[in-house]
Structure formats: C-alpha cells, structure tokens
C-alpha cells in the first residue's frame, strides 16, 4: 500500500449564473398529486422557490465527463444499484441496475474531480455483464469538486414573463403522451421554470499537492459539455438548455485560513466561449 500525503494548496471558488434558454424541469420523485397541484412538479425550497439541487447538477456534469472521456467501457463501470431479478416494482431496474463510471486509476480525471463513492462496488468486466469486486482502497482521496444548490435569481423573472406564468415562478405545460402499445392518450401536466430565468450557482475545486489548474480545466470542459446537452428532465423535448454567464473564478490559498489573507480574483468571463486554457 502506498502512502502519498495529501496537502491542500487552495480552493478555486467559481461563481456564475445559469441562464435558461428553454424551460427547465427538475422534478421531485414520484408523482405525488397535491390538491390543486400539477402532476409533475419541480423541486422547490422551503420558501416555494424552485432551485437546482447541487446533486442534480453534479451528477449531470459527471455523466457528461464520463461519456466525453470514454469511461463507460468494461472494467470502468460499476453498479451503484445492483440489478435484482426479483424486483417487480421497477422492471427497468430489474433488467439493468444502475451503472456509472468508477475506477481505481489514480490519474482518472473524472473520479479525481467528482469523487469515488464509499461502499463496496462491483465492477462490470465484460459485455455479458459479469462482475468482479472493485478495490478502491489505494486511490481514495478527498473529493475535489463541491457543487452547491443553485438558487433562483428572482430579479431574472420579469413582469412580462410573469404575465404568461401559472405560478409565481413557474409555468405549466400540457402534454399528451401516447402509449406506444395501446395508443391510449395520457395527458400530463409538467411544471417548468420558464426560459430567461437565471440561477446563481457556485462551485469549489480543492487543489491538492501538484494539481495546479488541472481540475479547473476539466471542470470548465464539463460546463461546456452541459451547454451542448441539457439539464433536468425531458431534454429530448427541448427542455433544460442552459448557458453559463458572468463566470468569476477566485483562488483561496492556504494563507486565507492561516493568516486571514483575502482570496484573489483570477479570471472573469462573460461567457464560456471566452475561456482559453
């Protein structure tokens, strides 16, 4: 077993706005039907304001980086939820389980930035889905990326937008899904945050040992990938197209903690296309 001491060199603090180019639907689990509510509501905070959970944002960025870096291949994919053949409640899960990338390569840019989950994992070793135990003991490091919940910037909801909305911060879309087999119509309402709304988002990247700006670059690539993809549900219907704006990157070195120094503003971009690393 090798031991490499981990020392914190500092933290990049990245603040930005997420602007919605199309409506966003980040749903709650299940379809609990509140009286007078819609059947597919968006997630809201205690004050009834929609927000984007850090876990959704982080999960999406991670999965995009897994695809981009070609990490979804045998020996690099694990079951986070193992398939259960007797699971009658969830047929989809019974067939497949929940798979994601996780590996013990100490140089893996995805695992090093987004973290390695605890617990014991079964790694899928071939296309038949056979598995083996995955030992992560030698590569555990603290997760570098922290993704906070993104809160709605209320001032981005204009008077004009409000006139076309059903609730204080959201609109409701009616959709008619056809059952592919019976052709029965299944009308549904979906709540979404309207295009034009902005969220304040904030990220932290810990810099360890000789990382320098390696993981900052990886992270900015992930943001670019998200702009070409979508956030939240129903992306194939055009929902959840986003753009990052007013990106400010600060650096907080260890003297911020030891000697009370201020953090330093390192980069400022109006949008991601200005980023040249």
């Amino acid at each position, binding site marked *: 077993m090798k031991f490499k001491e981990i020392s914190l060199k500092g933290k990049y603090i990245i603040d930005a706005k997420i602007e919605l180019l199309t409506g966003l639907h980040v749903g709650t689990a299940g379809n609990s039907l509140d009286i007078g509510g819609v059947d597919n509501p968006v997630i809201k905070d205690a004050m009834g304001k929609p927000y984007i959970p850090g876990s959704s944002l982080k999960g999406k960025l991670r999965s995009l980086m897994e695809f981009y870096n070609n990490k*979804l291949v045998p020996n690099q994919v694990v079951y986070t939820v193992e398939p259960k053949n007797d699971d009658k409640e969830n047929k989809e899960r019974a067939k497949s389980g929940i*798979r994601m990338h996780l590996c013990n390569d100490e140089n893996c840019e995805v695992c090093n930035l987004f973290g390695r989950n*605890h617990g014991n994992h079964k790694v899928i070793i071939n296309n038949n889905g056979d598995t083996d135990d995955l030992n992560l003991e030698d590569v555990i490091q603290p997760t570098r990326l922290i993704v906070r919940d993104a809160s709605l910037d209320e001032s981005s909801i204009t008077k004009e937008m409000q006139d076309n909305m059903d609730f204080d911060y959201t609109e409701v879309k009616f959709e008619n899904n056809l059952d592919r087999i019976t052709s029965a119509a299944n009308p549904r309402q979906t709540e979404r945050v309207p295009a034009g709304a902005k969220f304040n988002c904030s990220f932290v990247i810990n810099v360890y040992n000789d990382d320098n700006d390696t993981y900052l670059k990886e992270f900015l690539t992930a943001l670019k990938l998200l702009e070409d993809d979508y956030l939240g549900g129903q992306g194939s219907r055009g929902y959840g197209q986003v753009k990052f704006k007013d990106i400010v990157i600060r650096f907080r070195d260890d003297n911020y903690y030891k000697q009370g120094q201020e953090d330093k503003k390192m980069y400022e971009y109006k949008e991601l296309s200005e980023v040249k690393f």
Partner: protein
Amino acid sequence: MKRFRIKLKFTSPLHIGYKEGAFNLTETIIHSDTIFSGIINCHSLLYGKDKTDNLINEAINGNFKVSSAFYYINDEYLYPRPVGMNFKKYVDDFKKEKKINYVSEEILFGNTKEAYLKDNMLLKKDMKKNVYNVRERPRSTLDRITNASNIFYTSTCVFNEDCGLWFFMDAKDYIIEEIISSIKLLGDEGIGGDRTYGYGQFEFEPLEHYIEDIKDKNLLLSLCIPNEKDKVEDLIFYNIVERGGYIYSNYSKVKRHSLFRMIQEGSIVKGDFKGCIIDDTPEDFNYHKVYKYGRAFLIPLDWEG
C-alpha cells in the same frame, strides 16, 4: 488555557444523521467526536501529518478539547438537559417536563423565573418560529446506458435566521491559532454528510469565554469514554449511548469505527472526570492513526439533586 465559545452560523443545509444507513434525520446536534475529527482532518490538510500528530498529542494531554455543539437562538445558548434535574416549576405538567432535552443557559446558571417550552427546548424567551426545519430531498442516480433512474431520499436540517449550533473549545495559547485556522477551513469544507453538495458549511466567530474551575458536581458537555483512572462511582446521573460511524479521513471512506459505549452529554459527574482518546486504527489501515475522541468536557453545575 483559554476557552472559546464557537458559534456556528450555517450558510447551507446540514446533514447529520445519527444512524448511518438510515436516511431519516434523527438528530440535529453535532457530537464532540465529530467536531474533533473535523478539526483534525482540516488541520492535517493545512499543516501536514507530523504537525497534526503533535496536535493529537496535545489533545491526549488535555491541552486541547472540545464539547459537543448545541443550539443557540440569537444570544440565548442551550445546554443539554442535566440528567435527573427537575424543571417542574417552569412547566405546567410532568408530561411537558419529560419532553425537555435542552435548557437555556440563563435558566441553568442565571436567575430567570419564567421559561417557555419550545418543542424539546426550555427557553428564556418565547419563540414563535422553529429553530430549524427538516426537509426531505429527493436524490437520483441515472443509469448511464438506459437513463433509468434510482431515487432515494435524504433529510437535511436548515437553521432559521439567527439560529445555529455552538460549542466550547479549550486550548493552550501556542496552538490556538492553528486550531482556529483549521475550524475556518472546516467551515468551507463542511461538517456532517453530503459535503460534496456544499452541505454543513458555516461561518463563525471565536468568542473568548471565562473558565470556571470544576466543582463537586459537573455537567458533561461532550460524549465521554472513561479512562482507567476515572471512577464509575463518580457518575452521579448518567446516560450511555452507543456510537460507531464511519472514520472521517482524507484517505479512507469505507472504514468504520469500532462500536463504543459512551457517556452522554447532560450526565452529571463528581470531580475531575477526564475521559480519554482511544487508538481505534483498524488492523488493515496504514495511512495514519485513527482515534476515537472521548475526552470529558465539564463545567460546574450548582444544583442540589
């Protein structure tokens, strides 16, 4: 030795579950062993392993100790209800009296005549709003190939404005600066679960606090594992709790602590009960030593009981 009251103002939700594996939130205070590990880990990130070993030695020698963290509401500080102490004169009936788990500093040490019961807290001032709210959050993982999702729930605690948690920290002058820097980093790293989503982050101000010598009867403000010299007959009123949990380390996430039986906050002990810090390094773990923090944090309590 100096004593500080560290008042944590949380800037994000807090996820502190008592039983790991169960996703419902059963407890919202932070125990001394969790605070100690959090500080030690941040110290190691900032100052390196050797200096951190020194700090742990200072703690073993009693030159650095922490209490558990309890609620505050504005400038009103709560303490764990002393085991066996009677508060009937403040509430109407014994059913309500039984509910009390936390008591205001001014009721315990001041001469307040009136008191109000808010949930399980006995307060000096009447309090309309909740100290904290617990919210369930759906979380999902997407299967990367089929897009099927797996949804589960976690509970988080969000403190109301002007409410949060506070703890005591005692330290010798020459290590105070390092410890305060480590707590500052802990505020940015977060304490408790789901730190990767920015949970458990806080701001704080160390407020210097007077130290009173312990007396015949003392209130325990931390979890405590008795050392071999501590006498069991010195435990006047006490509760025992079992604590396990994951090891809080930069180098491992999957190892668990051994199960310890610990004396709970709010117990009453006679004289100088010290407790101890136990080497709990798992057999196949070679990165660094792992300790279970069980030193007693005591304050005198004048009370005929």
